[in-house]
């Protein structure tokens, strides 16, 4: 069986010690003892110490060592009270107000001792002219009490986690039951009869009108029954506490019309006066609460619910109801019925479940804070180291990625550079070869005269009276020279000399001819006419190819 699933409740009071083990709401085991009041140590702490051996034995028997434990206790300095505060201020302010109010009632400083403020109920409705209230349960106890409980339970092998003052549990349980049964506008009163105190709560739907502790419980009745009775100058109790407890929970409150019990020596007339005062106290407290807590117009409509461990005392509920003249309502939920079957204040803890109002030892709280802080520091350190590790890994990845990209880019660039360089070199070499050829061609061609142009020009310049017998052109060095042999004849109008001079002038005017030199000229006769033979030496102008045609076209003369 897994211990973690067990719910262990240890109940410690001056009159009763009990341990109850549940699993998923099912009772697994229970041990209980009632220290005899006469033998009991008047010092609460000493009595607790005496309980330690018994508790250790129970822990072993129930096999609950190391289980988380809820401690329901009634200590000598325990304070539990419900404070009302306007809901408009919020729960936090209500808690603070409850804390301040509680601090005025305690004999020990609140801040240095264990305390807790728990919001129990928030009204949803309010009487006309009034505000909705937040009902805050304030709990306080001395650090010594809590630490004594802690040490005792730890030494017994348990792990106390919650410390629930029994009056606080009764208050919370009573208010919860009031909320549970208040389903309409009819006012309800819940009387939760605990072991050492009772709780009276009253209210309507959505509103708690009052919640107060009454220092009368089942143990008060037991105490009353075990009280010494003065008879025949002797004061002796009719029964011991254990007998009184058993009698109370088996035979109940004596009534005049019949009281059944196992002991033939007891008479109702003897017992009734013993229990009457505490019962009357409860009745009076109940009447006073209704009178001062509820409006006059609704008092006659009030219905009463008696619950808590005291509700199991036969006849007590009926007696109280008869005395206060109120209609009694029954428990409506199955859980409430279950709770009713459990004796002692444990029933309050069961009624509340996880909503138990608990206080923590300041020392343990401090230790827990230290532990949590230490854990947070280590968690922070781990997270910081993880963050640093992540950062390092991320940086490393960036470095590797950058280096790989660099290597890849370098290789690609080198390859491209090589490839492109080779292509460029090839293209450049080809271009240079071509360009070089073009330059060589220009160099060679530019120095060569356009002889066709010269011939055409010569033809155009040569008149009918001039005949050429030889035309020779040759390159001499860098320049081309030519020799023209021929003769000019006279006609009817102009002499051969004039014709020759015109011919020479035409040659000199020709742009293709750079220089004209006359050679030998002789007078002679040709074709029966006076003639002048001549030799002309020419130096030609280099003419780019194609230009000669332009010049020829400009003359308008067809070549001869």
């Amino acid at each position, binding site marked *: 069986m897994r211990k973690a699933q067990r719910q262990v409740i240890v109940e410690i009071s001056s009159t009763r010690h009990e341990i109850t083990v549940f699993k998923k709401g099912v009772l697994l085991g229970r041990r209980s003892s009632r220290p005899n009041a006469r033998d009991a140590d008047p010092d609460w702490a000493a009595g607790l110490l005496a309980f330690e051996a018994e508790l250790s034995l129970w822990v072993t028997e129930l096999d609950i060592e190391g289980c988380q434990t809820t401690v329901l206790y009634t200590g000598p300095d325990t304070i539990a009270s419900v404070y009302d505060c306007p809901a408009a201020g919020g729960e936090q302010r209500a808690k603070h107000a409850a804390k301040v109010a509680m601090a005025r009632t305690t004999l020990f400083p609140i801040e240095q001792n264990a305390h807790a403020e728990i919001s129990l109920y928030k009204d949803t409705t309010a009487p006309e002219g009034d505000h909705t209230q937040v009902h805050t349960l304030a709990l306080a106890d001395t650090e010594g009490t809590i630490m004594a409980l802690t040490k005792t339970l730890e030494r017994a092998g348990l792990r106390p986690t919650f410390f629930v003052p029994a009056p606080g549990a009764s208050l919370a349980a009573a208010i919860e039951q009031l909320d549970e049964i208040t389903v309409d506008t009819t006012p309800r009163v819940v009387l939760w009869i605990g072991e050492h105190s009772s709780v009276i709560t009253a209210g309507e739907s959505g509103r708690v009108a009052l919640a107060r502790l009454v220092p009368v419980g089942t143990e008060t009745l037991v105490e009353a029954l075990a009280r010494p009775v003065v008879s025949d100058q002797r004061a002796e109790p009719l029964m011991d506490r254990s007998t009184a407890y058993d009698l109370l929970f088996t035979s109940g409150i004596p009534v005049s019309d019949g009281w059944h019990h196992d002991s033939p020596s007891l008479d109702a007339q003897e017992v009734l006066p013993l229990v009457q005062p505490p019962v009357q106290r409860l009745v009076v407290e109940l009447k006073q609460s209704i009178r001062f807590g509820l409006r006059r117009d609704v008092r006659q409509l009030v219905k009463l619910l008696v619950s808590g461990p005291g509700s199991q005392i036969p006849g007590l509920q009926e007696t109280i109801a008869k005395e206060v003249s109120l209609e009694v309502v029954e428990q409506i939920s199955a859980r409430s019925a279950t709770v009713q079957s459990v004796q002692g204040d444990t029933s309050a803890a069961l009624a509340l479940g996880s909503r138990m109002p608990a206080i923590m030892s300041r020392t343990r709280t401090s230790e827990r804070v230290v532990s949590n802080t230490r854990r947070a520091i280590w968690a922070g350190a781990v997270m910081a*180291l993880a963050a640093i590790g992540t950062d390092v890994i991320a940086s490393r990845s960036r470095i590797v990625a950058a280096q790989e990209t660099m290597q890849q880019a370098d290789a690609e660039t080198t390859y491209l550079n090589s490839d492109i360089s080779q292509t460029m070199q090839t293209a450049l070499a080809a271009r240079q070869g071509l360009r070089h050829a073009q330059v060589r061609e220009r160099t060679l*061609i530019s120095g060569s005269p356009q002889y066709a142009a010269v011939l055409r020009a010569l033809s155009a310049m040569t008149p009918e009276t001039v005949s050429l017998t030889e035309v020779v052109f040759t390159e001499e060095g860098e320049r081309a020279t030519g020799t023209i042999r021929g003769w000019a004849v006279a006609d009817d109008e102009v002499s051969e000399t004039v014709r020759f001079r015109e011919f020479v002038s035409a040659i000199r005017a020709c742009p293709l001819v750079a220089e004209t030199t006359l050679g030998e000229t002789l007078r002679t006769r040709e074709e029966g006419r006076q003639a002048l033979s001549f030799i002309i030496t020419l130096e030609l102008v280099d003419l780019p190819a194609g230009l000669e045609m332009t010049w020829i076209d400009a003359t308008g003369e067809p070549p001869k």
Partner: protein
Amino acid sequence: MNPDQIRTLGAKLVIVTAICGGLYVMIADPMRSTAHDAEIKLSSFLSENNGVATTLANLPEILESHDQTLRRAAEYEERSRPARDQSVMFAQVMDIAEQAHVVVESVTPNGESASDKNNRKAEALRPGDTSVKYAISGRGSYGATASFLQQLQNNMGCCIVKNFSITPDYTKTESDGLQFAITIELIGFDASPLAISEISGEGSP
């Protein structure tokens, strides 16, 4: 918490913070800086080599230009065929003569242009170029001879007329008949790719 607990927790917090801070300063921060530097170096490298990408983008244009160069070099090769191949030369001379209406009587190789080897033009040639001379003689009219000369110079590759002479053709009856003698030099240019180292060497213009 009491002061001792606070002091203990504070000390632990300081120690843990110091350890974490130290690890960060000693390991994480330098690695972060290294990574940053590596990325900057990479970015710089990529930026510096952006020209490669530009060149790469222009490569099609360069290749197109190269193709044009090769085509023109092939044209040079074609134009150089008369200088390199005698039969081509002869065929082209005859074609031109027919087109110009002249009669070519003889085409005689006149050897390499040895007489020009010392002049500036000869120096322009580079190894691989070809230079040959031919003496051409024939008959035709004055205009046809001029046309023949023009076509020789313009349509027969790189043809340089070294000298020519025309005299009346007294053997014929036509009044304008001429006899001509032409010496041409045919040059075949080597337009093959030229390494840059060769440009400044021998044969540069």
